[in-house]
């Protein structure tokens, strides 16, 4: 009996001490981590749409949309974050579409845990640039060969699943966003 109490006591106190230590460290870092995330989104937007002088966050039906204004305070585009399942985990993509809702200005991968060296290439400029000026009035298609139409992209060799995941996540979200903005 004494043995059981001792073992339980040691295990419990170890866990309590570790939990305190972790909450202390996380308390210091949480602000910085949130700032990094926020900054990543803002950097990504200004990167994709350098003409956006003002970014305004609005919520429509639980979807967060960033309205992008030019220096004359006119809406020139919309940005939004799309999220979905990739090959290994969640992929979070920021994309900017133009004000006519027909053209993708570009995408940025904000978060992903794809295989380093393979799926992780979705973060590379080579892949992301393929989405510049893509026609989104039709569904985006992901091909293994070179694209022939303006709504198609070529997938990364050896990372077809990750490439498809990106286009699927985008297609789903673009649909929702376009409908919401049109209704507004």
């Amino acid at each position, binding site marked *: 009996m004494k043995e059981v109490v001792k073992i339980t006591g040691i295990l419990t106190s170890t866990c309590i001490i570790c939990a305190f230590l*972790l909450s202390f460290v996380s308390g210091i870092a949480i602000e910085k981590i949130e700032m990094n995330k926020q900054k990543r989104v803002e950097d990504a937007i200004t990167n994709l749409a350098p003409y956006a002088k003002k970014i305004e966050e609005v919520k429509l039906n639980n979807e967060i949309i960033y309205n992008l204004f030019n220096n004359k305070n006119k809406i020139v585009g919309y940005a939004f974050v799309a999220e979905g399942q990739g090959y290994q*985990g969640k992929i979070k993509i920021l994309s900017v579409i133009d004000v006519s809702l027909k053209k993708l200005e570009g995408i940025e991968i904000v978060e992903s845990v794809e295989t380093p060296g393979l799926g992780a290439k979705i973060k590379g400029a080579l892949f992301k640039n393929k989405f510049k000026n893509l026609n989104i009035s039709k569904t985006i298609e992901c091909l293994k060969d070179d694209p022939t139409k303006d709504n198609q992209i070529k997938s990364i060799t050896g990372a077809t699943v990750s490439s498809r995941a990106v286009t699927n996540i985008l297609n789903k979200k673009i649909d929702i966003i376009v409908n919401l903005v049109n209704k507004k």
Partner: protein
Amino acid sequence: MREFIKGLWREHPVFRQLLGMCPTLAVTTSALNGISMGLSVVFVLFFSSLVVSLIKNLVPTQVRIAVYTVIIATFVTIVDIFLQAVFPDISMALGPFIPLIIVNCIILGRCEAFVSKHSLSASLKDALGMGIGFTWGLFLLGSIRELFGEGTILGFKILSSNYNPLIVMILPAGAFIVLGFLVAIMNSLEK
């Protein structure tokens, strides 16, 4: 001094003991990833050895593995939070492999096989030696794979742009091939 040196070569954790194969094979797609993973392991190994060495006489043998694992997990989580806050890019590149250090057998192995039987100072030297040995192993493996797979080392162009990258070196198969050669070289050097 002997305790420190042995991890660097004679009892090298990767090439001699073949421990910690999961991160060794998985994250060494580039030299930078290798170094970052290696240094994270140095930190976790050093502090886990320190704490385990200090409390080893208090912990009943039946639950020692559980206690060690909680301690290791705590330090790994600290590394994870630190990287997310200060080096978000590296944190994104290494992804799930940082939390996976918890089950890296080098760390639990050293705590169980060495720290629990030796003094504090010997344990710390052993931890540093093993950690740095692990780091140079991952750096070498990452450099070779990055060189042949992308033509660069640490992002610097080494091979001319005419060089046609061997994609296989970045793929998991490349990790096994390079590791096999390195272990073979190590073995023949030791003979």
